[in-house]
Every structure is written in C-alpha cells, then in structure tokens.
C-alpha cells in the first residue's frame, strides 16, 4: 500500500498523542472500535467556559491511516466550538489525507470518535447541571 505524504507525516509526527484526565468535567472522552476489528480509537476534548475546544488528545490502535485520521481530527477540533466540531465529516478527512477506498472506514472511526467525545462531554454537563 502506498501511503500519501500526509498520512506518512501524521504517522511519523502524530499531533496531540496522549491523555487528558477523563474524570475532569470539562473533558469529553470517546472510545470507538474494538480490538477484534483491529482498530480502537480514543479521542478526548477539553472544553473551555466559552464552549470552545481548547485542547484535544488521542490514542489509536489501528493502521497508519487510522492513526493519521485521529491525529488530524485532534488538530481540527482544537479552537472549534462544539457545533463546529460536530460538523466535521469523515469525507473531509478522506480528502485531506487522500485515503484510498479501502481505508475509508478508518476516517469513519475518527468521525465517530469526535462524536463520542462530544456526547460524553454533553452527558457530563447534563449531570452537573
């Protein structure tokens, strides 16, 4: 498989690898995928009082395209409002990273991870409201 320059760049220099405190009420955590399927993504967002995502982190078990998709997703959500982050589509990731058809599901997983993190954050807000 020939990887695009951008996939290689994210794989070699992944942005925002790591973890945020998952019990922090301003942090939303999304974990999607399953080990049996060969891909698990964890994406976290930290949301400021103004409703803007001020930080993001990821960890991914998956192919290089999955790592690149999640790395890109953390870059993109930073500085966005929750609504803007929710509008990110996997097709945007496919286009940006030049993913071949067989790797589209890796980008779907990244979109799912963003949504899961947003949902987790929203649930925490509701509980604390």
């Amino acid at each position, binding site marked *: *498989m020939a*990887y695009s320059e951008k996939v290689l760049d994210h*794989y070699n220099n*992944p942005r925002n*690898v790591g*973890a945020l405190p998952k019990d922090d009420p301003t942090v939303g955590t999304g*974990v*999607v*995928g*399953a*080990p*049996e*399927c*060969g*891909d*698990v*993504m*964890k994406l976290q967002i930290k949301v400021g009082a103004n409703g803007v995502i001020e930080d993001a982190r*990821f*960890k*991914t*078990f*998956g*192919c*290089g395209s*999955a*790592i690149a998709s999640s790395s890109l997703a953390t870059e993109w959500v930073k500085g966005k409002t929750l609504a803007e982050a929710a509008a990110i589509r996997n097709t945007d990731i496919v286009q940006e990273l030049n993913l071949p058809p*067989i790797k589209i*599901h890796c980008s779907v997983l990244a979109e*799912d991870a963003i949504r*899961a993190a947003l949902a987790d954050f929203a649930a925490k807000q509701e509980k604390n409201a």
Partner: protein
Amino acid sequence: MTVKLPIYMDNHATTRVDPRVVDKMVPYFSEIYGNAASKTHAFGRQAEEAVDHARKQLAKAIGASSDKEIVITSGATESDNLAIKGAAHMYREKGDHLITVCTEHKAVLDSHHALEKEGFRVTFLPVKTDGLVDLAQLEAAMTDQTILVSIMAVNNEIGVVQPLAEIGKLCKKRGILFFCDAAQAIGKIPLNVEELGIDILAFTAHKLYGPKGIGALYVRRKNPRVRLEAQMHGGGHERGLRSGTLAVPLIVAFGEAAELITTNQAEETGRLLALRERLWAGLNAKLQHIYLNGHATERAPGSLNVSFAYVEGESLLMGISDIAVSSGSACTSSSLEPSYVLKALGVDDELAHTSIRFGIGRFNTEEEIDYTIARVVDVVSRLREMSPLWEMVQEGIDLRTVNWTGH
C-alpha cells in the same frame, strides 16, 4: 554496524534467485534455446538433455526413486490443482471423499472447494493451538470413500511442520493417497518421499532461491502407481499430464536451486536456526507481551510468526518500512479479515491483528537480525505509547470486560 537497506526478510513470500542459479540458466535463453520436444535436431536435443539433468536433480532432491516421477508445472499453485483435481477425477469411481486441513494454502483449499461444487465431499480438519493436525482426528475422518488426504509439509504463514511420517503411515494403512504441498519445505527440513510415504508432492522454485513461474509435481509410480487426470490438455508433454512447451531456462534453474539447497540442507538449517533464535531472544529481551504463533520447535528454521500485543500489524509494518516482512492483520489484506491460519489456531482476532511474519533466508546476516530487533523494539514501544489498549492494560483494565462499540 552498517547494514544495507532495505532488508528482505519475507522469504516465505518468495526468495532472491541465487547468483549461482542465475549463471546456470542464462545460456539457455540465447545459446541453447531449442524446444526440448524437437528431437530431430541438435538445438532440441541439447535442451532435452538439460531438462533431463534438471529432472534428475529434482527427483534426487526429494528422494524420488525415478526421474519419471517428476512432472514439470508452472509452480505450486498449478501442482496443487493438478494433484487434487487430477486425483479426485481419476479415482471418482473409488470414492467421493477427500480430507484436508483448514490451514492449507489457498491453492489447496480452493481446489477442494471447486471439487465440492462437483459433488465431492471434503473434510477440512481443524488444527491444534500449536498449528499441528491431530492424528487421531485425521484417522477418525478416514472412511472407505476417502480417496485423498492433502496435508502440507510446512505452513507458509506460521512455519509449523506437520507430522508427515505419521500421516503417511495412516494413509498407507487405509490405502488412501497422501498428497503433500511441500512448497515451503524443500531444503528447509529433511524430506524424502519414500521415507515419509508421500504419494504426490508439490514444490516450486521461487521458494528455494530459484525463479518464479516454475514448479513440479512428484507422482509416485510404484507402491502404489498413482494416476492423475490431466488438467491442461495439448501436445501431450510430461507423459500427457501437463501439456505445454517446457520452459528450459527455468527448469535448469529449478534443478540447480533444488540441488544446492538440499545438499546443504543441514548446514543451512543450522545457520538459519541460529539467526531465528537470535531474533526471538533479542525481541524477548526488550519487549513484554509478545507471543509466538505456532509450535515452538516443530517449525521451519527461518520462520518466526510473532504477535506484538496492543500494536496493530500494518502500523508496525509502516514503522519498520526498511525491513520487508508481512503481517496477518486484517488491515493489510484486501478482505479486511485477519489471517485464517491464525484464526484456525484459536489465536484471538485481536492478537491476529498484531502478528508479524519474519521469513529469514539464505542471504540474511546477523547484522540484519540485530538491526531488525532494534527497529522493531523501537517502533513497538513508540506505537504502544499511542495505543489506547496498552494504556488500559497499564491501568489494570481487563480488555475482555470492556464494552466495545465495534461492528
């Protein structure tokens, strides 16, 4: 330490043609280029002599009693097809049942699937967790209708060696033909068709430092005399079993490569074994949670299949891109299914996704092994740092208890 990059360590997939073999074959392209079937002139007779010599080398390499037992084909895929379909069609009157194993090469499995469509019945035996067939299960599967047992010598993914002598005995006892796909075995383990009771045997040049596109099928002529129905019809070459003009340069090369590897088998095995043990020990010294797939000792000397838990195989391959190896991960396959061989061993899907197959061969060096160890350790450690599974395990979470959202 200087190693030349990239390193080729995928010798199950194919091997580099030995320079000595290349030297032997070259004159047969532009000097001795006759058709081996043209017996009326010198060009043809010289070509025929070269083929005869190669056929003797091939027969000797597998311990066949006569070079008349060697049928030249285009490779192991064709040999597998000819053996299985050829035997099934020839002995249809005797019975309609065949036995094989679910970890065989696709050429064997799919030949059986094709026969099932024609109405034959096939038993696909499971394997034990070490990758070996259970002899009691094999014996129990044999019926009066069974005409052929097809079991490979060395597995192409995990390198395990099946108990061929015992299988040969069971087949002989029941009067069932024993076909063995030995593509990965010739020159890697001692293999003699007489001693092992093998009736039909497939092998191929490109796995033993010969060229691609040339192979052979051994077909026993005595005790018992095996007959096959041809699958390729035409000019009646190879005693009518496989028509087509003989590829003389490739056959010359195949014969030479087979002689080289089998006459040096013990010595080469010793060297490969030492390299493999160095690799396994080096990886184990630096990494936890790595698992050997397949039997620890009943394996071909250059084969090592390892699961690096919590690190997906394709991402690992990407990190060690200057070392050519392969993975059983679904992400590397076009079907997005993990290796069916590892699945058959009962390896969890999640571990199958993390498997890497190292195929050490004739041209690998100690320096290359050391470089490989260092690279793999480095990349596995880096990828584990970004693996959510590794993080969970470090936190003491049992991954089996997690409610995953996978499909």
